[in-house]
């Protein structure tokens, strides 16, 4: 097994929205950042991966098994965190352990306690009294405590303050250290993905626009700032998207080194994932 998740030609039709031939992979031992604006299809894709919605076409393999045939077996080795807390308000952390201890065969009570301690989650309070950050940390602790091989996180870091976010990102980094574990993380907080992702998959209006190694992406792409006259000189295959300001053009270029060589006096900056996203969605071709 080389890929923790392998999606081929996933299709899902709603009245007003479609996933169109979504295909991408989550290679084993890596973190894949799944980005896109609200409503682009991130959550739908994740739900289709988990069989929470019925797909209209395509195949999905997880941990080397077909998700329709071996669903139960797969899910025993997958940890999922969704946007929000899914435990009932009146439960305490100990209750959760009792429940999940008999749902997951490999539930590790000790590990769970360790995470609770690490995240400073109180054992005597009911979940209703937890802050949003604490709830998210609890979900993540739970997702890790049955020793999964794969984590699927849907907006798990949104709505959290930067300190909690970093704490959680550290846990994710630790999780993939052994090269066996993998993470698929959807987020629109792209700075988190700048930090931890190995690959970036970018979905827009139900279609995959971009699927690349992050380092490759960030080291090659750049933003050229120039006037209209210089922009007109660019050839079609030298840039991906452009955005027009009041006085100048900002151009997302494929290969910043080549552009710098060709136009030595031009200003070409590096790019962040957020800028790439903005260029793709709001820029012109």
């Amino acid at each position, binding site marked *: 097994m080389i890929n923790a998740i392998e999606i081929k030609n996933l299709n899902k039709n709603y009245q007003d929205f479609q996933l169109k031939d979504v295909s991408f992979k989550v290679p084993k031992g890596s973190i894949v950042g799944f980005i896109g604006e609200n409503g682009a299809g991130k959550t739908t894709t994740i739900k289709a991966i988990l*069989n929470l919605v*019925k797909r209209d076409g395509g195949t999905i393999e997880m941990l080397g098994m077909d998700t329709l045939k071996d669903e139960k077996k797969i899910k025993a080795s997958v940890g999922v965190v*969704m946007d*929000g807390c899914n435990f*009932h308000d*009146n439960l305490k952390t100990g209750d959760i352990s009792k*429940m999940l201890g*008999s*749902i*997951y065969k490999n539930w590790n009570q000790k590990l769970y306690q360790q995470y609770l301690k690490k995240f400073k989650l109180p054992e005597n309070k009911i979940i209703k009294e937890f802050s949003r950050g604490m709830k998210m940390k609890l979900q993540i602790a739970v997702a890790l405590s049955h020793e999964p091989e794969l984590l699927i996180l849907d907006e798990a870091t949104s709505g959290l303050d930067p300190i909690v976010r970093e704490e959680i990102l550290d846990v994710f980094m630790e999780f993939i250290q052994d090269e066996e574990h993998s993470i698929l993380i959807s987020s629109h907080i792209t700075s988190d993905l700048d930090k931890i992702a190995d690959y970036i998959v970018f979905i827009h209006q139900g279609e995959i626009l971009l699927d690349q190694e992050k380092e490759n992406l960030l080291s090659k792409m750049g933003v050229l700032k120039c006037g209209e006259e210089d922009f007109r000189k660019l050839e079609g295959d030298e840039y991906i998207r452009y955005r027009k300001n009041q006085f100048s053009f900002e151009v997302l270029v494929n290969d910043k080194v080549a552009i710098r060589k060709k136009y030595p006096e031009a200003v070409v900056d590096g790019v962040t994932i957020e800028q790439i996203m903005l260029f793709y969605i709001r820029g012109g071709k």
Partner: protein
Amino acid sequence: MKGLILKDLLNLKSTFKMLGLMIFLFAVIYIPQGNGFIFGMIILMFAMMVVTTISYDDLAKWDAYALTMPVTRKEMVLSKYLVMAILNTLGAVLSLIVGIIGRMIMGQSFSTEILAIIGVLYLIAFSFGSMMVPLIYRFGTEKARIMMFLCALIPTGLILLFTQIKIPLPEATNPLIYLFLLLGFTVIMVSGSYLISLRVYSNKEF
């Protein structure tokens, strides 16, 4: 499966406490009057609780999350019916205890009449739940509640109508026939309801 049932019982922990208090109060008020009303109350309160567990689940968006675990949709549905059976049984047992204690306090001997009342109510509780669960799965808790009221109104209205126009209700010489009829009806209701729920739930998207 065990985990799912445990989840519902843990969630109802605080409800159980409040219910205990209410039953005590009702018992103090109604036992001296010596009518069977209290048994109906207790069993109905427990029978309603399966609905409460489903609305708790909705509130927490639990089902979508639970299905990311090694739990099948069939187990999700089956666990709800088992929880219903546990709650109904709990209600019946509690009714019986209240009945026995009540009789003892009032200095009367225990009569089979109480046993019959509780037995019938116990079976009706299953039919009630069997009607409710698939409606909830299909339409959600809020709408299902309104529908339930309508479902209860129609037979009540019919019975009222019958007594108004003085059609004699059938009278059997042996009351045991009623019991077996009711038992058969309950079994059909529960199994039919389970199959419908399973079908609705299997096609559900989260």
